[in-house]
């Protein structure tokens, strides 16, 4: 089993013993975990979460540091994917969404999510120069990046594992809890808007459940 078999279900036993492919899957899972934490913490910051044991700047600093860490693992995830000859993904399809012939649209979701994360990160790095409104407008893209990344992950190689499904469930529960708390805390106004946002948020676990029940998994090999 030394030869590299491309693009086929028969390549799975080969893939199971390749360090690069392990690194890709592991860094992907960790990126999703960190992105989830970053999104949930960001929601807490915007809702002025103020527990007694922490100061507020600690929570916002944690939000930023976890976000930067998620980018580091995202970089590992992308580099190991491109370098690994097992999956034919080049640098350009890793950066430009939906142009890769390989495993479209699932790889496109990955590229879209990472581009959105990059946009959020770069604008945050220069946010004092940008001004509040443009920065905030771009920062909202994080809400799009997270579910896109989640469904890219759900199409992944390890989704059949109970532990992996547990990780996805925990990620969804964390963001959903944070978003619902935020919408509840936002006060009495804009009830229709808050209710519809809450319903839209609830669509994520519903769609993920439907995907896990019937969607294609393990598509990347």
């Amino acid at each position, binding site marked *: 089993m030394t030869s590299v078999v491309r693009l086929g279900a028969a390549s799975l036993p080969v893939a199971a013993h390749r360090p690069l492919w392990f690194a890709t899957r592991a860094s992907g899972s960790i990126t999703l975990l960190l992105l989830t934490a970053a999104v949930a913490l960001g929601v807490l910051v*915007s809702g*002025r979460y103020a527990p007694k044991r922490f100061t507020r*700047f600690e929570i916002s600093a944690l939000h930023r540091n976890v976000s930067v860490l998620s980018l580091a693992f995202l970089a590992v995830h992308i580099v190991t994917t491109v370098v690994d000859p097992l999956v034919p993904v080049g640098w350009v399809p890793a950066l430009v969404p939906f142009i890769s012939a390989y495993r479209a649209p699932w790889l496109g979701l990955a590229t879209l999510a990472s581009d959105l994360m990059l946009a959020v990160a770069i604008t945050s790095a220069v946010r004092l120069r940008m001004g509040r409104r443009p920065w905030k407008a771009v920062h909202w893209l994080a809400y799009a990046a997270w579910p896109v990344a989640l469904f890219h992950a759900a199409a992944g190689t390890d989704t059949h594992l109970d532990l992996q499904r547990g990780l996805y469930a925990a990620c969804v529960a964390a963001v959903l809890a944070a978003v619902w708390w935020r919408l509840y805390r936002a006060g009495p106004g804009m009830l229709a808007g808050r209710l519809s946002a809450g319903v839209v948020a609830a669509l994520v676990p519903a769609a993920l459940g439907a995907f896990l029940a019937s969607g294609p998994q393990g598509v990347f090999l």
Partner: protein
Amino acid sequence: MSDAQTASGVHTLLIDRIACDGHGACAELLPELIGLDEWGYPIVRSTDVPGELLDHARRAVAECPVLALRVEQKHR
């Protein structure tokens, strides 16, 4: 920080009251100059930023979640 020393006393603290949501991070990071009222909104004790507090003031500016705090150099 030679910048802080030479510019001592010429930096000033500005709060955008419209943007401020009362997160309170500024008062945690710069208690020497900023306190909070009973609703959690900032009360500026002094808008002049002394040189030894300039780094702390810039940290507070960077941590404001709604970018409502600025440190600007006074034009004389």
